[in-house]
């Protein structure tokens, strides 16, 4: 061997004395079936084992924050639909709560109840996609379509109340665009009942499937300390066994008036904080959501009458100089809006804290040492929406 050969280059490793293998650099994405959009992860792999992973984001950056400075408060609502497009209602809600807090608007109670119902319905819809695409990532196609079947109903519920199926623009600062149409609450309750039944089917078909468990347990373990250190929120944090849910720890809307559990990962199948735990937290949350919805419908019908769902506010909202931060529990974690106003009808600055973006930051830390097939499982279990990562 010459000297040149005997000094190992970076990225090479010696296995047997004179046999050298070179790590392979693989470009996963931006066009890859399971990066959930246009995420690009550059993976260095030694055979099937990943040695390092670097995510690159920004392929669908749409300047949401800058747009917020250029349009009026009401006009920005449709843009909020578009960062986490799978949970548009929750985005609407986060932004509206921030503006309402800054403008000190009084929202009618009926609007608040309906907001809660919509937010929870949308949480179910979003988790259904997480469930379905996770199955898809692991090679099970059928649960995906079963999930979509129920999600379709959820979307038609939204279509009935606001007229849109994906990007709702339903909540505006001060309240809602419309009151619920007649019979809507009954259908919501019916949906909850059917959904609870179907949930058991998902459980048997995917969650308890041996292959699925083997693929997800002890994979991509995020210890609680690490999860906190990386600023994870939502199911990713709770999957690591940390009981932190904004609906419980800092209740907004009327979440303090309904009772619900916060599922946390318990390491039922393997280690606390593995992919299965994160996945199962989402599944369990869906059941909690139907529970919340039932209580909300009951309380809403008992306490309010159809009618006013919009606060009294001037035609163009102008907010005196102030700064507010409002975080809400999005299906993917804490969605924060930091709003700075300067007395004009447009925001001076709006900073959006996207949960997917923060959750994604853990990928370089947990991918090394796993297999390429696991990379797909881990990215899927973090459940990112690229629209919100890039905003």
């Amino acid at each position, binding site marked *: 061997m010459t000297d040149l050969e005997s000094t190992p280059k970076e990225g090479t490793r010696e296995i047997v004395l004179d046999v050298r293998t070179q790590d392979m650099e693989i470009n996963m994405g931006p066009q890859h*079936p399971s990066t959930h959009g246009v995420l690009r992860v550059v993976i260095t792999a030694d055979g099937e084992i990943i040695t390092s992973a670097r995510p690159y984001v920004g392929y669908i950056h749409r300047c949401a924050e800058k747009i917020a400075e250029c349009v009026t408060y009401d006009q920005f609502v449709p843009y909020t639909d578009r960062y986490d497009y799978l949970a548009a209602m929750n985005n609407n809600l986060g932004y509206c709560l921030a503006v309402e807090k800054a403008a000190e608007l009084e929202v009618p109670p009926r609007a608040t109840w309906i907001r809660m119902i919509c937010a929870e319905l949308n949480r179910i819809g979003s988790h259904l996609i997480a469930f379905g695409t996770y199955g898809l990532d692991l*090679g*099970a*196609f*059928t649960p995906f379509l079963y999930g979509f079947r129920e999600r379709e109903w959820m979307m038609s519920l939204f279509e009935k109340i606001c007229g849109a199926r994906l990007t709702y623009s339903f909540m505006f600062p001060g309240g809602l665009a419309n009151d619920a149409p007649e019979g809507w609450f009954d259908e919501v309750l019916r949906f909850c009942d059917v959904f609870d039944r179907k949930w058991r089917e998902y459980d048997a078909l*995917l969650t308890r499937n041996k292959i699925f468990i083997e693929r997800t347990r002890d994979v991509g373990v995020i210890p609680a300390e690490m999860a906190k250190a990386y600023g994870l929120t939502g199911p990713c944090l709770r999957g690591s066994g940390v009981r932190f849910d904004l609906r419980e720890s800092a209740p907004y809307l009327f979440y303090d008036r309904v009772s619900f559990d916060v599922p946390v990962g318990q390491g039922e199948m393997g280690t606390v904080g593995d992919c299965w735990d994160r996945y199962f937290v989402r599944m369990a949350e869906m059941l909690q959501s139907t529970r919340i919805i039932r209580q909300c419908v009951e309380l809403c019908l008992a306490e309010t009458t159809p009618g006013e769902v919009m606060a009294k506010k001037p035609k163009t909202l102008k907010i005196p100089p102030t700064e507010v931060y409002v975080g809400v529990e999005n299906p993917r974690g804490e969605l924060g809006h930091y709003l700075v106003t300067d007395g004009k009808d447009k925001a001076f600055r709006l900073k959006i804290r996207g949960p997917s973006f923060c959750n994604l930051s853990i990928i370089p830390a947990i991918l090394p040492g796993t*297999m*390429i*097939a696991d990379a797909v499982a881990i990215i899927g279990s973090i459940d990112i929406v690229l629209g919100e990562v890039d905003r």
Partner: protein
Amino acid sequence: MISALPPAAAIFLAQGTGGESRSLFRDLFGAGSGWGSFASAVLGFAVVFAVASALPVLFTWAERRVSGRMQQRRGPNRVGPFGLVQAVADGVKLMFKEDIIPANAERFLFALAPGLVLAGMIAAFALIPFSERAIVVDAPLGVYLLAALLSLQVLGVVMAGWASNNKWSLLGAMREAAQMVSYEIPMGICLLIGVLSFSTLSLREMSLAQADGWLNVGNWLIFRNPLFAFPAFVVLYVALLANTKRAPFDLPEAESELVSGFHTEYSGIRFSFFFLEEYASMFLVSALAVCMFLGGWNIPFLPGSVVTGSVGAEILAALVLIVKSFALVFVMIWLRWTLPRIRIDQVMNLCYKYLTPIAFVCLIGTCWWELR
């Protein structure tokens, strides 16, 4: 063009190893003359090729239709009645698509690989006994030849993965190589159980031996020796699933991990070769399992004489074999649309920790059973 050569070569090879055995077309042309065996080889190739390319048309339709219904969709329903002609339309589309060879690919191997993959499969078709006489080549070493031809595709897949000059393809090919080589062990052992029980290596003779018996199913291997042959059948089925790269063992293609695995870079007609191979080999391995464990062409509860003797009976026999194989293919489709995909290390685990020991136990058990 180069892709079509290996199948032709393979079929001649299969004919060659046929040796002194009997076959449908040899009888026809007279086995003695050189021209006769050449003509019978050509005709055999034509028949096998036709069958092997017609079946995938049916199976792709079945797969899409069945998966559709399992997912509460409809599946193809536009082209022809119940969308039956859909696969033909797809085939035509694939044929007219641009045939792309990546700039840095190894052109010769890239072109050769799909043909090689198809070759083993088509040649293996010649060994399936559809009825007592409807067999293109009844080789005395039938079972082994079949196993050898089945494993020929791994060469083509590795070739395709390497020649594409694509990292995903390479990974897919590596997985395929590891998976195939491993699963040949339980598969081989299970085939050995059949060989042991019937004391023959010819699939045709095995099928004949399974006629009659208790309720006319008693001689089927899984009933004749239920304690050991049934687990062996299940093991064989799983190993064959892995062999055909069907879910949950579709790691070499693993569309959510490796984009499309070893055939990522293939398009048009070359891609359709891989496609054809997958679906035809589904039938092939099912037929193999049927011939060995499920009584071949024998009809349950009816004596073996019903399906042997006359031409009509043999057509019935062929139909029975096809129906039985279809049932197994249906289970393959059913499994695919139910299960997630296994990871590569778990595939190895399953093979070496579960299937191989079980297969060995069954083998020893069968020895005891036969010597009883």
